């Protein structure tokens, strides 16, 4: 906001000048500019001739007006022009104008990364399940379009680090990674130059690989309990996962949905000799028990 207010009069001045000024006349040598200026860096504009003049520089989101003395160099401090883009400089002296164009280019060194990582939670062992996209910006938030290597690293404690290096293209780089076979919070780090950005990907266990229960008499009830439930990579199924026990006896059925707690699910069902008891979670079926005292 401060920036906009500072340059508002200059911007209005440039607009008025563009509308009212006579066509530019060729006056070579009045204005000498570098072809490119690095965003945010200081630079100098050389002028030739003598007497007072007004220098206007206008471009993407920025406009500057300076009263200059022709023949003296005009210095711009670091940060005066920090928005990358195409600029036009006008040197106006009386009715004569010299016009030059130049580019403000992003600084070559990354200043920040916008790192989009999806999804934030997924199952273990998924091929190309994680996608990461990085937009590289300099210290002044200009998109660095010059190609540069970006490395992506996905790591889970006590597991091998998966890493890829991708060349950026038009300021962006992206990749896809496999989720590891170990559950846990994976650190997904993107690095360009000295700058890195980290996202956390929660890798969660997959479907149970095998579901096995056992039954024990408990008074008038049967106490059912599963073995520790794990996915096919050996990760314990998270607490809260619903396991359904079903007892069928004499044409009647009893079901109870219980959450897994500390890797196992437990429930009591009525004790009937000859009852058939099954267990399931989601679309995974477990073993079957015929109950006999």
């Amino acid at each position: 906001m401060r920036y906009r207010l500072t340059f508002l009069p200059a911007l209005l001045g440039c607009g008025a000048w563009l509308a009212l000024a006579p066509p530019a006349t060729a006056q070579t040598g009045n204005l000498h500019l570098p072809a490119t200026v690095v965003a945010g860096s200081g630079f100098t504009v050389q002028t030739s001739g003598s007497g007072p003049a007004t220098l206007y520089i206008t471009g993407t989101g920025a406009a500057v007006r300076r009263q200059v003395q022709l023949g003296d160099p005009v210095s711009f401090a670091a940060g005066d022009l920090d928005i990358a883009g195409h600029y036009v400089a006008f040197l106006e002296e009386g009715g004569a104008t010299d016009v030059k164009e130049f580019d403000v280019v992003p600084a070559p060194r990354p200043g920040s990364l916008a790192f989009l990582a999806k999804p934030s939670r997924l199952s273990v062992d998924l091929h190309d399940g994680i996608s990461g996209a990085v937009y590289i910006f300099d210290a002044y938030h200009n998109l660095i379009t010059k190609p540069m290597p970006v490395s992506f690293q996905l790591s889970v404690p006590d597991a091998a680090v998966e890493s890829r290096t991708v060349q950026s293209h038009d300021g962006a780089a992206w990749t896809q990674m496999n989720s590891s076979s170990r559950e846990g919070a994976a650190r997904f780090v993107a690095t360009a130059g000295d700058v890195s950005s980290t996202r956390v990907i929660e890798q969660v266990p997959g479907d149970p690989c095998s579901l096995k229960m056992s039954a024990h008499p408990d008074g008038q009830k049967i106490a059912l309990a599963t073995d520790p439930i794990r996915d096919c990579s050996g990760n314990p199924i998270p607490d809260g996962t619903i396991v359904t026990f079903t007892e069928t006896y004499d044409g009647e059925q009893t079901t109870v949905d219980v959450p897994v707690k500390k890797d196992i699910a437990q429930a009591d069902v009525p004790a009937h000799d000859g009852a058939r008891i099954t267990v399931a979670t989601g679309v995974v079926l477990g073993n079957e028990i015929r109950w006999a005292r």
Partner: protein
Amino acid sequence: MGRLIAIVIILATIGLVIIGTLWPIPTAAAYAGETSGPAHSWSSPQASVQSLAHDIARHHWAPAYASLENKGEFNEQDLIRDLNGAQFSLRTFADLESFRVRPLHESDDRAEMQLQMHWSTVVGNFDDTRDVAVVRSGDRWKPVWPIVKEPRVPPQVIPVNYLRWDVIYRGGGDDWAAQDVESPHVRIVDMHPVERAAGVVVMGELLNEDVVPAYVHVRATLMAKSGKAIGSEVSFDRISHLLLPKQVTPFFILFPNAALSDVASIRMEPTATLVAASADPVIEIQNQKLNPMPTPSLTGALVNQSGQVVNIAHVLGTFYDKTGQLVWVADRYIDRALMPQVPVSFSIPIPQDLAGKISTERAVVSTYSQNNDL
């Protein structure tokens, strides 16, 4: 012309007010606080039970209790708890929409009447049928109310340590590329459209294949051969909205007045939102039984294995044929609260024409507890 319409409207309004005042409908009369009317009579067994039913409909508990022969067996609060529920159950929010008294047996001093009460609630209707004995006491017939005492759970401490999920969502001040919590992943594992007299029904089952709880609903859109949408409906309350990890719910979507022959395809859109939830309470569904014709139904009993009172429970039944194909989805709200460890029976009617096809079933329960904000 405008003046004529105004006069007609005024006259019509006056006429309707007069009609409503002279011959009010029972519900309006009850809201207006009308007490005894011509329906109150104790001169015959049937009239006596009708009078009692009128008092029940108007929640006039004191005269209803006073009219009973067996007052000594219970107090007025027991009667209220029997009919109106004790724990903010569905009965608490129900109105007696209509009733019917049917004589079963009658002698000089005693009669047996059947009182069929039809209660209405915002989630549908339920019926309550009581066989009421009526005895002569002088020149009056007095009902003997068959009280159903809601069981009281003895004071105790029930430790509950099931999981609870809380969620921190992305904040407004977070960076543009900051992550948000991922929505739960759900999947339709079964879908079956059928045509019924009421229209096209799209049924199916939805699985929460994630490790976090999900608040779900399903939208179906019928597409015509031309590619145009015929209609779009959601599962509304015929689904268990809260799905814990790896839990499966049936869903039932009705398209009134639609014909399956007009449908070329169906677009299904399951929606899942990550919500805070608790794994408590755990409800056991005991003695589930498929009852044959002539009144096919799924019956059973719900047992609340937790310590928290469940005010309203909703049972959804999924019915399959011999090959495991989905045949029907039906549901029923339970009118009584689920007290800890106290079985409460339920009955879900099954369409007669489908009863022969049904071989197996699966029931799930969704619950609402007043003291649980999750």
